[in-house]
Every structure is written in C-alpha cells, then in structure tokens.
C-alpha cells in the first residue's frame, strides 16, 4: 500500500446525502477480477447527467471528494473504494461514513475524513465559488486546510500509523501467528467445520 502522509488537491462538492455503494458503483460494474479499471463505473448512473458535478470541467481534476452525510452505505463492495481511487480520488470528506465503507477505505489507503456537517457545507461553498481552491489533508497533523481555514480531524493512532507507513495488514497479523496457533489449540471441538463434507 502507498504511504499516505499529506495530500493537496482540488475539491469536488457532492451535495448528496446517503450516497450508497450501489450509487458509487452499480453491481453491473463489479464483474472484473482485477483491482483496476473500475473508474468507468464510478457514479455511473449520474455520469449521464451533464449537470452532475464530475461532468463539469471546473471539477474534473479534483482529488478530494467532499460528500454529504452517510456516505458509502449499503453493500460491502470494496469496488466502491477502488472506483474512487481508480478515478483519482485520494481523500473523501463527509460528516458521517457507513462503517464497512470506512473500514474498506482505510485498509486500502483512501483517506476518509470526518468533519462536522457545518464545516462540510462551508467547504462546499468555498469550492463552488472557487473550484481551484486547494485543499490540504495532512495526516501527520490531522488537519484539513484550505485558504485561511484549518479544521482538525480525529483518526485513531493505529490506523494513522498504518496509513503513514503504508503497512500491509496481513503482514502485521502474520507476525502474531503464535497467538493464532495458541488460540486454535484451545478451540472447542463442537465448533463446526466445512470439511470434510457431511
């Protein structure tokens, strides 16, 4: 995983709440067996609308998505994270994220930042009045900065460390193999197994 320390880029205001993962990428686009190429499915149903924010030339180079509340609800598809990343997004800011989407994003190196709704709305206004506004998201200092405005955000120390080091979760867990072995040794015998087939 690529390290995430600090990112600066233009914002894209997505003034919608409850954007579920079926909207981020519809199921018909989930058939690939790779992790790349999902950008064509990103917000597919809305991309036909010329007024949709991603179709506006002033927002086409944005890398920081500023979205309404409850972003990423619904299906657990990690393809939603890949679609955003494949398209070029590095950060999503919202006042609330669905649990599974947030977990997926932080595992995959797409930084999801929670800010109060009032701050999100102020960012929308700022980006819409000047689409070239540069937003800096600094994981080291845990701040989002644009113009003269700076907002602190919280993220737990462990996740922050993992993102800043670009660490592979599986590699970290495999260092605990002894603990896993010990746990398995005392698992109850009545716990079911899928093999042998009965």
């Amino acid at each position, binding site marked *: 995983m690529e390290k995430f320390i600090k990112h600066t880029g233009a914002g894209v205001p997505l003034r919608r709440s409850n954007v579920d993962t*079926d909207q981020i990428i519809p*199921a018909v686009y989930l058939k690939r067996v*790779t*992790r790349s190429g999902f950008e064509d499915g990103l917000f597919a149903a809305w991309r036909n609308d010329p007024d949709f924010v991603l179709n506006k030339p002033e927002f086409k180079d944005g890398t920081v998505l500023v979205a309404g509340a409850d972003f990423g*609800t619904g299906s657990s598809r990690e393809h939603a*994270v890949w679609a955003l990343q494949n398209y070029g997004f590095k950060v999503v800011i919202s006042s609330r994220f669905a649990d599974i989407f947030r977990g997926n994003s932080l595992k995959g190196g797409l930084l999801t930042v929670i800010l109060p709704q009032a701050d999100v709305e102020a960012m929308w206004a700022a980006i819409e009045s000047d689409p070239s506004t540069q937003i800096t998201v600094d994981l080291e200092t845990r701040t989002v900065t644009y113009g003269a405005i700076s907002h602190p955000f919280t993220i737990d120390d462990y996740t922050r460390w993992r993102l800043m080091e670009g660490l592979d979760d*599986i590699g970290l*867990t495999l260092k*605990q193999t002894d603990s896993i072995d010990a746990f398995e040794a005392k698992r109850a015998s*009545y716990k079911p197994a899928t093999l042998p087939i009965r």
Partner: protein
Amino acid sequence: MEKGVAMGKTLAEKIWAEHIVRQADGEPDLLYIDLHLIHEVTSPQAFDGLRLTGRPVRRPDLTIATEDHNVPTLDILKPIADPVSKLQVDTLRANCKEFGVRLHSLGDIDQGVVHVVGPQLGITQPGMTIVCGDSHTSTHGAFGAIAFGIGTSEVEHVLATQTLPSTRPKTMAINVEGTLKPGVTSKDIILAIIAKIGTGGGQGYIIEYRGSAIRALSMESRMTVCNMSIEAGARAGLIAPDETTFEYIKGKPHAPENWDEAVAYWKSLYTDSDAKFDVEVDLNADDLEPFVTWGTNPGQGLPLNASVPNPADYADTTERTAAERALEYMGLTAGTPLKEIAIDTVFLGSCTNGRIEDLRSAADIVKGKKIASTLRMLVVPGSARVRLQAEAEGLDKVFIDAGAEWRNAGCSMCLGMNPDQLAVGERSASTSNRNFEGRQGKGGRTHLVSPLVAAATALRGTLSSPADL
C-alpha cells in the same frame, strides 16, 4: 457499580471476548473467525493477493464458497451467457480448486444465496464469528452469532490468517414487545425499525433484537430481521439462541456430533440481567402494520395504509432534499395512497425472504388464484435445496398455476448483476433488502415489502396486504 464487582455482559460482548486472539493497547482486537463464506464477486482479488504473496488459505476447513450474485436463474446448466459473469464464476471455481476450498456450484444441491446456504447446512451456529464479503452476512446473527460483512482486503486477510483486526462496536438493544397481528411479519418489524432509527441509526453498533415478539419468531423470520441490520447502518445484528434455534439446527448435515456439549455452551449465550447496552430502542409489535418503502433508501418506509409523504413536511433540510429526490426518481406524487401504486413486477426471493417459509406463506395467498394481468411475478428460491423442498410440497405448481415464473436459486433480481433486472421506469414490489436507485436494474423503481404483501400485490396489481383481498 462497586469496585471489583464485574458488571454483566451483553451477548455480543460475550461472543466478542471469546474470540480475541490478541489484545493490545491502542490497537484493534485481533478476532478469530469461525466461518468464512465466499462468493464470486468479492473474492477474486483476494485470492489473487494470496497468489502474489505465496500465502495459502490458513483454514480451508472453516471456509465455504457458493455461486450466487452473477448466476442466471434460467437455463442454469448451459454456460453463463454473459462472458464477464462467466469469467467471474470460472475464476471462483479455479480459485477454490487451487486453494482447496469447498464450493457449491450451479447445479449442486447446496448452491444458492450464500446466506441461505450456511444455515441450511447447519454450519451457522450460536456463539460463532462469521464473515463474508457481503453486507448481508448479518443474517447469521439470528442464531446468536456475531456475523458481519467485510471488504475484499479483509476477505484476503481472513483467508490468510483466519483472523481479522477489529474494533469492538458499541451495543444497542432493540426491544420488540407484544404480538404481531395476522398478516404482519418479521419483515414489517425490521422495516419499521429502520424507518424509526434511520439508515445511519445503527452506525457503530451491534444490535441485539430482544423482546417477546422476537422470541416468538421462527428461525427463518429471525433471519429476515437480522439480515437487514445493515440497512439500519449496524455492523451486525443478533438474537439470543433458544430452543427454537437448537431445534432448527438439530438434524442439519453439520449439526454438532457432540450435541449435548454444544447445547450446554449455547445455553450460556444470553445477555446478563445486569448488563448494560450503550443504547436501547423500543418498538411495540401490537401496533405494527404491513410496511412498505416509498423512497430510495430503506429508511423511507411507511405503513401500507399511509400515503406518499410530502417532502415539505420534513423539518430537516437533508431529509427534505432526500425525499424530493426520491419522489422524483420513484415517479411518485405526494399524497397518493400507497395502495394505489400500480406494480409491474413482483419479486419473491433473496437472502432476506427466499427461504421455504417465505415461499409457503406467499403460496398460501396465491393458491387457486391468478396474478394480475398487468404484472409479472418472479419466484426465486434462495437455494437449490429450498427449490427442491418447495417442489416436494407442490409450491412450484401453485405459483406456476397462478401465472408466476418459477426460477432456479440465486440472488436474482435483488441486485442488477445477473439477467434478472428491472427495465428503466419499471416498478417492483420486492421482498429483497435495498430500494436504492438502480439497485434492481438501471432506472428501476423498488418498493420493499414482505412475502405476504408481495403475494397480495401480485393478485391485485397495486401495493396490497392480504387483508385487502
């Protein structure tokens, strides 16, 4: 609380504690996973990751796969027509073969929707941790298990380590007391709960469904409730196991051989009387009516006797805007009685309502009658085993004689991924779990309903409950 006196634990806290492999300050708990369910959509990149790093599947004997999301429900023994879907299913078959994972393919008696397959095999049991790359994994919580959906990176993590680093969610009790009226089902309970707490109401929580109305439910009805926990935003939902649970597992292929020992353990799985939930929510079952959604998220639901709401009546701006957008997408006018909404397609099936009891209850209503000439009805059993059971009971004939289509097992029209989809503007009454824009096909319009409402709607042509017949 007195110092040194341990406070009681909730059911979720007990199961969680029993599965901690490693705990360290400032880190998520490393949780052992008892069962990993796999399907074709969210696993290919995970197996690819294992290949790239040369890692094996740690516990193939705690892993099971089936084909459900992509598969057609007609002509299942012919090659899958869509080449991209076929590649994904073929990839699953190759991966399971290479890594030694048990797979139930199209044509196999245990093929079906992954959340129907686990319980029918008896592999879903109380006190387990169960994960799957699918958000409706919460279904298995009906047995008193912690079961939740994960992303593909986590699928790879579980394949490689049989564990998952996880932060323990908070606990929420939803107390449903009282008795359901005839014609009101567990689907109506969960739709009413989601309408009450909202699609984000459960965020960060494991919900425990409690109360006399929950205890009175059959196992399959309990699965319907737990299935839609994710639609309230919850990480998982569970119900304490009891005699109903034990009876359901008994005799299933993977029921424990040392039964008495297992049951003794299962009986310890309840929330202690002095345990404290972070949040409690109450719902009165006596007052419940059949519920239906009118909008584009599962929280936008109302009793069937109500009318399409007026967005102007919402005080909250976000809710008002969402309601305006939803009515526009759904092609509905505020004030229209829900029962006057004409339906084009009725879908009976999915991991929410594709089990044998669901088919029986709908068949009871359509038996000897004809569905409205203005609509089509798809009946899709949740698994091949459910289909065979239904056929043994003659339910297939009941549906076919009524004019419905009798299909093979799969996720079918629950999500627009296989050939069963709504056309642009087509309106469905669906026993599935999501009414998102385009969920059942681009431009399709979904009303979520119970199997009873689905059957009554099929007969009358507009959203209806059995009482309207």
